[in-house]
């Protein structure tokens, strides 16, 4: 197997993001025509990736890698094999058409530039996701697709339904992303590598690991939410709130397939176990049936298509879960076909909506003469979706039936039923609006501009061409892809026309008969499903609302209980915790400081300490503000004296000045504050506060005692003493430290002083002019009056 390094992959991965940057500017310059210009970017990417086809078809891979966060083993590495390549071609190819289509669809929309930006960003994320080699990079791209999808679904953010859908998609896929991250980290720890290519080469390591079950469940959590598997399917139909180009691109052709991609990617190392072959087919089959039945219920073209997308994703998961060669080949073919026809049909639905003014299938009819090109494209898409010859969808269905033949009869039955219903929806979308008598539509319908019909026409032609040359398609694209998914060479022998009457052909005929029957009885079927849903009356969509509402209520209650708005409660809790933090470690480890020797203070020292203590006591006991201010001054001056006595004249000096200024400004402010200076606390409160205060104080004292009983590390002090004069030319060591050795600190500190000065100025100045009258709530005034007893309220 050859592996080539191509550095242009970096450029290709970055190009959509760069294009997203210039998109708004380009839109301002060119208007809606910017779409044609911007489409060149994905088109160039498409051509570049197409150049890798021969290499990959020959079994080779292309790589590119650069270090990103080497300390954490995170590399920006890309790795392209058959699976990545087909995805990359679909993303860039359909992306080209979508950008053009968006230019036509949203022409004249004031935010079109932003839309281009979002959709190109999404393209970059999705492209990165499928070619990423590093697991962390893969996760980041994965989350990026969720975020860009959120932006795109919520593009029309003035509508509540859009916002809800966007949030829902973000929460569901983002939650799954977290599960995926855990899974990815477990994979990395089990295999000892963060590179996907090395994980894939690890053989049975993951399957035999004790962590296999958690890894599988976490990965499935990511994949099932992203690919809208039951019961997480509800976000996808809601995401149809997005503009149609988004639905066509993200929610049918690319993003929702990220989950399938992940499952296919990990199939060689996680698949082929009993658990894998139970969970995946089970959920896939349920999703397939639920999706198609719900699709029948709808009358909105986009919603019908959205539910069949859910169903198709279920089918893909089902097929991947069988881990059998033929079924995987079927899955690969179906994925390819689905991206083509579903993208086209969504664009058709958008054109109808755009030109006729409604998407309700019951209000449309007879458009075939007015919109012939659209009709043709719709028909081609529907034939492929229904699995009829001569489209690629037919080949896919033949192969997948063949693959399922060996497995359980139930899976086969689910696949047949699902496909029959998909045929119904496909033709309902493609035929009902166009056939029959002409109906009056909100807008006078006519054919859309080329920008609109180009996409569905090209996709239809590709679907046709790939089917006609199915041998080439198989050997160049889908064979290597199936081999990558299967984890070994795949025998590929594809024919457009079955060479003999085989079981799959018979199943196909059965499907068509069932489908045509159901199509004719569509209205009755719709009523039936609607009635059944009414009986159930609850769905995960409503469940989502309930969960969100519970979360919001719970957080409101929690916030109110934690932040009650009472400062003294916050302070009490905080300081009680401080006391615990100080004392608990010493108590638990029994490292109390040793009993100190009795200090022998000199006369002056004893006197100063006594003065400080008196000052403190006087502050607490002060009954008038003058006493309080003077006592505050006393303890401050006592501190200054202590500095003086222990060899710190600079400190002492500063402290004197500051205390003087403090007393002055406190006096200035307090004469106006006009406060009664008496403690209001009841004695029980005082007891509690006093206990906390004394415990904290004791904690600090004991810590300090313990610190001073340790040996003193003089290294820093010696450094400053030794170099203060020799290299900094100063004899006042303290000053040299401030202005020289630690000058950067001081610079920050004087900036802080400056900022407080400005802040004070702002507080004083602003207030005087703009007065916001604050009316205290009545009961609050009563309460505070009550609590303060005889004190007066100003």
């Amino acid at each position, binding site marked *: 197997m050859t592996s080539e390094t191509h550095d242009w992959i970096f450029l290709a991965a970055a190009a959509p993001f760069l294009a997203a940057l210039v998109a708004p500017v380009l839109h301002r310059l060119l208007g809606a025509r910017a779409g044609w210009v911007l489409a060149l970017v994905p088109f160039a990417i498409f051509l570049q990736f197409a150049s890798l086809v021969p290499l990959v078809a020959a079994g080779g891979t292309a790589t590119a890698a650069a270090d990103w966060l080497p300390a954490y083993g995170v590399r920006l590495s890309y790795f392209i094999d058959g699976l990545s390549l087909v995805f990359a071609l679909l993303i860039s190819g359909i992306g080209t058409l979508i950008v053009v289509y968006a230019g036509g669809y949203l022409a004249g929309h004031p935010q079109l530039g932003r839309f281009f930006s979002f959709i190109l960003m999404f393209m970059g994320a999705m492209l990165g996701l499928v070619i990423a080699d590093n697991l962390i990079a893969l996760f980041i791209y994965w989350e990026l697709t969720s975020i860009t999808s959120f932006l795109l679904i919520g593009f029309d953010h003035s509508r509540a339904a859009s916002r809800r859908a966007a949030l829902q998609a973000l929460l569901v896929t983002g939650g799954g992303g977290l599960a995926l991250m855990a899974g990815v980290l477990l994979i990395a720890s089990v295999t000892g590598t963060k590179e996907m290519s090395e994980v894939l080469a690890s053989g049975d390591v993951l399957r035999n690991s004790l962590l296999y079950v958690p890894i599988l469940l976490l990965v499935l959590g990511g994949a099932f939410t992203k690919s809208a598997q039951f019961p997480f399917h509800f976000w996808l139909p809601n995401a149809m709130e997005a503009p149609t180009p988004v639905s066509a691109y993200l929610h049918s052709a690319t993003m929702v397939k990220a989950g399938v991609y992940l499952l296919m990617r990990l199939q060689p190392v996680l698949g082929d176990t009993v658990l894998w072959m139970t969970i995946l087919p089970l959920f896939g089959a349920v999703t397939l049936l639920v999706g198609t039945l719900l699709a029948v219920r709808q009358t909105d073209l986009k919603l019908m298509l959205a539910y069949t997308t859910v169903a198709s994703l279920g089918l893909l998961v089902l097929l991947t879960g069988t881990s059998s060669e033929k079924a995987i080949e079927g899955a690969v073919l179906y994925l390819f076909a689905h991206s083509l026809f579903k993208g086209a049909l969504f664009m058709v639905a958008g054109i109808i909506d755009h030109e006729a003014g409604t998407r309700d299938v019951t209000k449309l009819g007879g458009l075939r003469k007015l919109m012939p090109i659209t009709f043709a494209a719709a028909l081609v898409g529907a034939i492929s979706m229904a699995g009829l010859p001569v489209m690629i969808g037919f080949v896919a269905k033949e192969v997948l039936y063949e693959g399922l033949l060996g497995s359980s009869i139930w899976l086969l039955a689910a696949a047949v039923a699902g496909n029959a219903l998909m045929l119904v929806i496909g033709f309902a979308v493609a035929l009902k609006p166009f056939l029959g008598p002409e109906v009056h539509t909100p807008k006078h319908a006519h054919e859309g501009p080329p920008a609109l019909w180009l996409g569905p026409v090209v996709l239809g032609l590709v679907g046709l061409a790939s089917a006609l040359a199915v041998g080439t398609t198989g050997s160049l694209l889908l064979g290597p892809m199936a081999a990558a998914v299967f984890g070994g060479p795949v025998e590929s022998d594809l024919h457009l026309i079955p060479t003999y009457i085989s079981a799959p052909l018979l199943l196909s005929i059965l499907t068509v008969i069932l489908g045509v029957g159901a199509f004719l009885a569509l209205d009755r079927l719709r009523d039936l499903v609607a009635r059944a849903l009414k009986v159930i009356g609850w769905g995960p969509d409503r469940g989502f609302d309930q969960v969100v509402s519970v979360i919001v209520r719970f957080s409101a209650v929690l916030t109110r209980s934690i932040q009650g708005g009472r400062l003294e409660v916050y302070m009490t809790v905080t300081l009680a915790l401080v006391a615990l933090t100080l004392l608990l470690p010493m108590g638990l480890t029994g490292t109390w400081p040793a009993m100190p020797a009795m200090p022998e203070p000199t006369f002056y020292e004893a006197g100063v300490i006594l003065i400080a203590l008196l000052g403190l006591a006087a502050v607490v006991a002060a009954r008038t503000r003058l006493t309080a201010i003077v006592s505050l001054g006393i303890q401050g001056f006592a*501190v200054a004296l202590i500095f003086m006595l222990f060899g710190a004249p*600079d400190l002492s000096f500063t402290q004197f000045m500051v205390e003087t200024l403090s007393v002055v400004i406190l006096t200035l402010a307090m004469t106006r504050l006009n*406060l009664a200076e008496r403690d209001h606390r009841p004695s029980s409160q005082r007891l509690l*506060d006093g206990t*906390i205060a004394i415990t904290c104080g004791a904690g600090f004292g004991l810590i300090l005692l313990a*610190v001073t009983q340790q040996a003193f590390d003089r290294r820093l002090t010696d450094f400053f003493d030794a170099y203060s004069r020799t290299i900094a030319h100063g004899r006042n060591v303290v000053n040299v430290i401030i202005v020289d050795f630690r000058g950067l600190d001081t610079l920050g500190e004087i900036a802080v002083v400056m900022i407080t000065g400005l802040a004070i100025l702002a507080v004083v100045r602003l207030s005087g002019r703009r007065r916001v009258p604050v009316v205290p709530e009545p009961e609050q005034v009563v309460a505070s009056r009550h609590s303060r007893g005889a004190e007066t309220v100003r």
Partner: protein
Amino acid sequence: METALAGLVAAFFATSIYLLLSRHLIRVLIGVAILGNAVNLLLFTSGRLTREVPAFIGLDEMVPAPGVANALPQALILTAIVISFSFFAFLLVLGYRAYQELGTDDTNGMRIAEPRSEPPPPMGY
């Protein structure tokens, strides 16, 4: 001697915390002022005490005489004193303004940011 100052530091902290726990704005402010002194003394003492020998280098010496006071905590405290003063002034002005605007010096009465009867959060999207 460190022992005596440790006791004094404990007294400073206890006093300031007792005042901080009050609902009275001006007491809280005084508590903050004392807290600054408490922390400064804590720093000062943990750098060990030296009686009356400041950290200066003699005119003819290149290094200070052995046994001078530890200069490092002094440098840290010097800036801390000025900063805690400017913050004290800021808090004072803030408290003063709050008192003027809200008409109360009781922290329980200051409920602009966290009103007593908060409306339920919006339930829509």
